[in-house]
């Protein structure tokens, strides 16, 4: 076996025997010995990190997760706790443990740009890990723990600079961004050396089981076989698979997933319901006209139908753009004319009803900017104050909007991009005004309010218009949730409290 020893001490000793340097004091000599003895790592197992973090009070499931990753998964794992259970704390504990044990000298953390400051703060303040944010021209070879955004890391010349470094540990936050193996970021991460590696995501499957396959193949290539053997072993297709018990077991060898109900913490209830809405006869007429549009691609048609379920403003915007692009079309103009005569938005009325009944703070999520603005106007006309929120806001604007919502307004209207990275535990009602295709987006949205620190039951309203594309979206969401539960494990309610078998 390899034995490493350094001759440094010997050289200093010889020079003192030869009277070239001063001897040290007996007291400092004894203090030095005592410190080394105190800091000694007495066993291969067990966490040392907690001894050094007197101000951090990790929860039991976070300590368990850290131990499991180090002792059973050998430091390569997907941390897939449900939203709001403290995946960052778990990652911090694991990194700290490896730093203390001398197994990691340098670490790289990739996170969405909006979460970088949060990471810096948590690691420096809670864990005393001197983490530094990447900046252009900064001397990264001198930084031991570097945090940067995925979007920066994957591009030249940053990409090459990172590849030149030698990191012992790679941590990737919001790792579901790596679900597609054809993307630049996937290739970038594939090319990184992953001695120890943590992938953090509450949603390892968003749409189909292949996303999880790609994630695991990044972490431990071969664990689920290669693509062909994986596909044939589990007869996997987008929304179908077999032998899921066996697959689940394989997945659990590399994934830690704590659920709210396993944490031993008293969680408030999550009351989820689907709120069915019926179009007015006029709205139905326009919806049907859109459905019979000719010479329109199926994707554009679906978009229009979804928009019609949202607001006439969103629909009109797309239709007008189509006119601009393709020139005159009597068909489209007829729809636009009919659209403009609509006076009632059934869905907005329902949303208003919920807001009024709640008599409390409410978040409304919509997929369309036009709907967002319309809703603000509509609520304002009914005497309800609201603020807008979208993911493109920088950190200070986000914080300001959050502040306004907390102190001044009853409603926050957010577009999809507003889903990650804000915590709004003071609010207990969420309206999903439009349904996304991806169930995990719903989970991320709900996670903004249903997280550690929430003291009230939270109410989730999923609005869906009967006999429209939204019913199909609902069915597909059920199918996708079913695949997730078969492979990853149970999910907290996101569509409805009543399980539906598919």
């Amino acid at each position, binding site marked *: 076996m390899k034995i490493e020893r350094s001759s440094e001490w*010997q050289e200093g000793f010889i020079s003192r025997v030869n009277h070239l*340097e001063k001897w040290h004091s007996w007291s400092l000599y004894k203090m030095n010995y005592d410190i080394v003895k105190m800091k000694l790592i007495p066993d291969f197992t067990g966490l040392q990190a907690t001894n050094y973090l007197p101000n951090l009070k990790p929860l039991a499931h976070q300590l368990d997760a850290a131990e499991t990753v180090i002792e059973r998964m050998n430091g390569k794992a997907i941390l897939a706790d449900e939203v709001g259970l403290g995946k960052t704390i778990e990652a911090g504990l694991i990194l700290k443990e490896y730093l203390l044990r001398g197994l990691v000298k340098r670490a790289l953390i990739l996170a969405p740009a909006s979460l970088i400051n949060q990471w810096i703060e948590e690691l420096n303040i809670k864990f005393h890990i001197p983490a530094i944010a990447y900046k252009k021209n900064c001397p990264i070879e001198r930084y031991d723990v570097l945090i940067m955004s995925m979007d920066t890391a994957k591009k030249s010349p940053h990409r090459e600079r990172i590849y030149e470094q030698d990191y012992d540990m790679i941590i990737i936050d919001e790792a579901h961004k790596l679900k597609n193996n054809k993307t630049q970021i996937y290739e970038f991460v594939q090319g990184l050396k992953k001695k120890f590696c943590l992938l953090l995501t509450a949603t390892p499957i968003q749409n189909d089981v292949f996303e999880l396959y790609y994630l695991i193949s990044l972490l431990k290539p071969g664990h689920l076989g290669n693509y062909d053997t994986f596909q044939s072993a589990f007869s996997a297709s987008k929304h179908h698979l077999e032998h899921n018990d066996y697959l689940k077991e394989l997945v659990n060898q590399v994934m830690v997933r704590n659920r709210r109900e396993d944490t031993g913490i008293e969680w408030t209830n999550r009351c989820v319901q689907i709120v069915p809405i019926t179009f007015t006869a006029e709205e139905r007429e326009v919806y049907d006209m859109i459905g019979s549009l000719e010479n329109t691609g199926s994707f554009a048609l679906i978009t229009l139908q979804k928009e019609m379920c949202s607001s006439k403003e969103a629909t009109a915007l797309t239709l007008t753009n189509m006119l601009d692009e393709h020139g005159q079309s009597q068909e489209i103009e007829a729809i636009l004319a009919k659209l403009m005569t609509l006076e009632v938005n059934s869905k907005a009325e329902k949303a208003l009803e919920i807001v009024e009944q709640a008599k409390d703070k409410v978040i409304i999520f919509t997929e369309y900017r036009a709907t967002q603005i319309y809703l603000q106007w509509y609520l304002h006309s009914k005497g309800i104050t609201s603020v807008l929120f979208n993911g493109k806001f920088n950190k200070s604007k986000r914080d300001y909007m959050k502040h306004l919502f907390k102190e001044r307004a009853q409603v926050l209207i957010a577009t999809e991009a507003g889903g990650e990275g804000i915590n709004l535990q003071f609010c207990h009602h969420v309206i999903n005004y439009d349904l996304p295709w991806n169930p995990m987006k719903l989970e991320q949205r709900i996670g903004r309010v249903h997280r550690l620190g929430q003291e009230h039951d939270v109410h989730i309203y999923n609005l869906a218009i009967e006999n429209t594309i939204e019913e199909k979206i609902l069915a597909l969401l059920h199918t996708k949730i079913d695949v997730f539960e078969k492979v990853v494990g149970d999910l907290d309610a996101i569509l409805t409290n009543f399980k539906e078998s598919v």
Partner: protein
Amino acid sequence: MYPQQVHQYLKGFFAENECPIIGEENHSLTVQLTVDIDKRIMNRPFYWQYVEATNSEPNPAQVTFITDQTAMAGNLFGEVIHYGSPRLNQLFHATGELGAYVQLFEKVDHAMGQVILTPWLGVNFKVSYCCDRTKEMLYSFGINLLTGVIKEDFHESIYASDFDTVPADNVFHVQYIIKPVRALERLNAAVESIIEQDDHTWAMEAQKRWQRDQRVLDYFYEDVEDKPECYEIERKALEEQYESKIKIDIINGGLFYLF
């Protein structure tokens, strides 16, 4: 390390390094650093570069350390220091550098008249077993520089003794016969022999984990004729992760003239 222990440690460290303690409360300590200690623990190389380049008057820092924040009443301005904090780690590091080598003569009661002291080389070793996990052990050895006899737990045996840094009038210290460098070689060999006789199941298990992961990786690239670069990167990562090795560090040591 409890706040009270941190407090005692700081007092001891600064006293030994000639940094006067200007003020002390139960849970705080104000100290005037010397130039040397400032350089070692305050993290400001640019300031010291500037002072040296411009030949200006050095102004080492005066610091208030708060050793127990929870017990502090009032609003004292200072730096909170606790076990695990970066500053304390710097102090530990400085202690390591400033407490590495000693030459000491045991104090003997004058009533005993003239006595003869025997030379010993004492060395404290830290041995680390590393793979994807770690375990550390301390070994303390002393070797009699006249007879070559090796004693285990040497540090514990002299821990409570009092020493002088120069021989007192009433002692006569014998010169060593075995050269310290040769003696050090013998102690190194003693540590290695202990390691050899130890149980190394840990290394076998790491080897098994390594082989298992290597098989999984090979399976992934089984049908690929020209292995891509990422295969090589992954293979290297597994090697770094699981390869077992043993590190031997010397914490400190020195020449002890014992009664």
